[in-house]
């Protein structure tokens, strides 16, 4: 059954505009309106998901087909990612239902939903300027999210994170916009497929300049090294949900935008596949640096933040290998990360909720005794993130290794192995703290909603881990989209 994918954007907007009204007339309800919006998105996504198996789901707005109007082209890749994003957002929001009153819950929930909307918009739109608009939405929602401090943080406002992100996000937006302007100026169109079609005739200098600006801009959004200096600041002081969103939604949207623009649009315009190579090594460096930094951090929020950075690098590297197995691996890694990271953030947020300031590793100590369900869920999350079979990450790493091997990228493989060892190092430390029962800890009940969401994600990890086969059809489309842009071009013309 096909539903117009534009509803993925419209429904949350309706919800967003309803929030102020509701907060006037039914104050209690206001903070759950965004949840309804998200559920609406999820329903639409669920209805459309089946169609992704046959290719992109498309729609036009304003009554004009592409390139005159703005078209929505939900490619299977975008659809898969959007599904994951909605899932993460739902995870974050539902987990907070525990009957406790929290400050700024309404704003927080609204921003969670809006960040998700923007991210979903970025991945499903077929128009490059529309992508920028959604980038703006995401970025602004991100700033507000970053500003909302986590429970128990002494300061009233996570000023540092918000300011840094606002500043850098502004720069990023500007650069992306400049890049879009260049592309539009050179090709006289804004539709991504049409730009891709015409890029061959464009002067390489323009393409290079566009790549440079877009790379910096979107690289900042997707936390690539060395453009990710803002990320730890954001992760450190904000709520666990914000962390999940930055790693699972906002960054992922930036990542897809970067990949799509670099692979589909710009790569044919430059020589020697240089775009792929740059991304590959930037990704590898990001992975190494991210994991190393996570390994040497003490504060759990930072550890997970750096870890997310590392994973972004891994994803970029694996997609940029430009072979089928690399993309397959990247997709699985993406799913694995989207499923595992929120679990870790959530359980860590639970375990460290009473800590003022930094949350040291030791706050996980004895979690398996004090709250067995949290301990088990977190353990599975950790193992899934390292890549224990059966987990999506395992398949991802397997395909990545075999792809890197088949391309003869030995340096990459060494970086991957070293990075994996670092990753294992800090995740292992978490594990040992969870299972360290030497010191008695007071019993601590995991709120029901949080437990249910955690269990649900664990279930998905196992589901995809055991039966990754059904995803293959979608992954075939992902490969088609990224390896051979012409496929994407043909999808664009409705």
């Amino acid at each position, binding site marked *: 059954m096909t539903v117009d994918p534009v509803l993925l954007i419209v429904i949350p907007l309706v919800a967003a505009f309803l929030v102020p009204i509701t907060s006037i007339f039914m104050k209690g309800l206001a903070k759950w309106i965004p949840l309804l919006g998200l559920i609406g998105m999820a329903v639409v996504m669920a209805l459309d998901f089946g169609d992704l198996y046959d290719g992109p789901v498309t729609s036009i707005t304003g009554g004009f087909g592409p390139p005159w109007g703005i078209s929505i082209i939900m490619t299977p890749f975008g659809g898969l990612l959007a599904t994951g994003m909605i899932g993460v957002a739902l995870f974050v929001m539902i987990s907070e239902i525990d009957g406790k009153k929290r400050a700024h819950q309404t704003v927080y929930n609204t*921003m969670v939903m809006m960040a998700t909307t923007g991210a979903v918009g970025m991945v499903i739109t077929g128009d490059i300027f529309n992508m920028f608009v*959604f980038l703006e939405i995401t970025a602004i929602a991100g700033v507000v999210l970053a*500003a909302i401090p986590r429970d128990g943080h002494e300061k*009233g406002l996570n000023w540092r994170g918000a300011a840094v992100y606002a500043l850098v996000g502004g720069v990023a937006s500007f650069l992306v916009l*400049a890049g879009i302007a260049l592309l539009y100026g*050179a090709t*006289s169109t804004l539709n991504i497929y049409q730009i891709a079609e015409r890029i061959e005739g464009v002067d390489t*200098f323009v393409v290079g300049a566009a790549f440079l600006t877009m790379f910096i801009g979107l690289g900042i959004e997707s936390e690539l090294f060395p453009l990710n200096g803002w990320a730890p600041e954001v992760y450190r002081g904000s709520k666990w949900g914000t962390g999940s969103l930055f790693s699972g939604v906002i960054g992922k949207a930036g990542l897809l935008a970067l990949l799509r623009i670099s692979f589909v649009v710009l790569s044919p315009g430059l020589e020697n596949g240089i775009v792929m190579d740059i991304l590959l090594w930037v990704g590898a460096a990001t992975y190494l640096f991210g994991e190393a930094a996570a390994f040497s951090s003490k504060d759990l929020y930072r550890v997970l933040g750096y870890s997310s950075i590392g994973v972004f690098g891994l994803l970029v590297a694996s997609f940029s290998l430009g072979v089928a197995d690399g993309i397959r691996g990247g997709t699985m890694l993406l799913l694995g990360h989207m499923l595992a990271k929120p679990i870790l953030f959530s359980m860590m947020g639970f375990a460290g909720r009473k800590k003022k300031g930094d949350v040291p590793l030791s706050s996980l100590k004895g979690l398996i005794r004090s709250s067995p369900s949290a301990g088990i869920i977190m353990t599975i999350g950790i193992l899934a993130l390292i890549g224990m079979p059966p987990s999506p990450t395992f398949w991802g790493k397997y395909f990545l290794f075999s792809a890197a091997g088949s391309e003869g990228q030995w340096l990459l493989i060494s970086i991957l192995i070293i990075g994996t060892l670092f990753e294992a190092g800090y995740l292992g430390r978490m594990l040992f703290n969870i299972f360290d029962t030497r010191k008695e800890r007071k019993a601590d009940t995991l709120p029901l909603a949080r437990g249910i969401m955690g269990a649900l994600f664990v279930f998905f990890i196992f589901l995809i881990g055991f039966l990754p086969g059904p995803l293959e059809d979608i992954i075939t489309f992902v490969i088609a989209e990224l390896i051979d842009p012409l496929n994407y071009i043909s999808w664009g013309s409705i």
Partner: protein
Amino acid sequence: MMERSTIQRSLPALAISILIAGTLFLAFVEIGFGENKVDSEDAVANRYIANGTTETGSSNLVTSVVVNYRGFDTLGEVTVLFLAATGVGAMINLLPEDGKKRSKGPKPSLIMTQGGMLAIPVIALFGTYVFLHGHLSPGGGFQGGVIIATAFLLYLIAKPDAKTSHRTLSLSESLAGLSFIGIGLIGLAVSGIFLDNVIEGFGVLGELVSGGLLPLIYIAIGIKVGSEMSGLVEKMRGDAS
């Protein structure tokens, strides 16, 4: 010390600026700005210029692009504004208590108070005019909304202690946003295309009631932007102490 530190901080920023500016300049020179790089048939702009009025029923070409061809972007921009307003409000709320207090400025002069009171209705009327005629003449919802917000700003300057209704502002803002989406959904319901200008024939070109749904959208945008900017100004004022 202070000097050096400032230079230290500015230097990379300067370098980046020069680098980016230089690259962009060279690139835009390379493109040949404003020239047709492709066959005129395929360039989006050419099509807008050629068919804009007939396809959208708006005699203002900018409006036809902003509200119809790329109406979805506009919805997005409205949302950006909405988020920015909400976000600023939230962040002000998050500030520590002493940061939220309204600072006492000098009292406005008589001229300010009286002149302001005179000017406000006129400005508001002008704003309304601008967004009502968005599909006919230059201007539109955004501009009109901002003009209205200046009237509100002037009011607050003239009467710093005036009580304002936060509720009304959010209500109008929300309702305007919802009506924008509602108009879009009409298109979805009728022709299956979001934001489709479904009214047959769009009316007579150049008349006030023309352009199909475009004026309605611009009205919604005008109200929304107006109340949003006003709300923003109002929030910036801080809490009464």
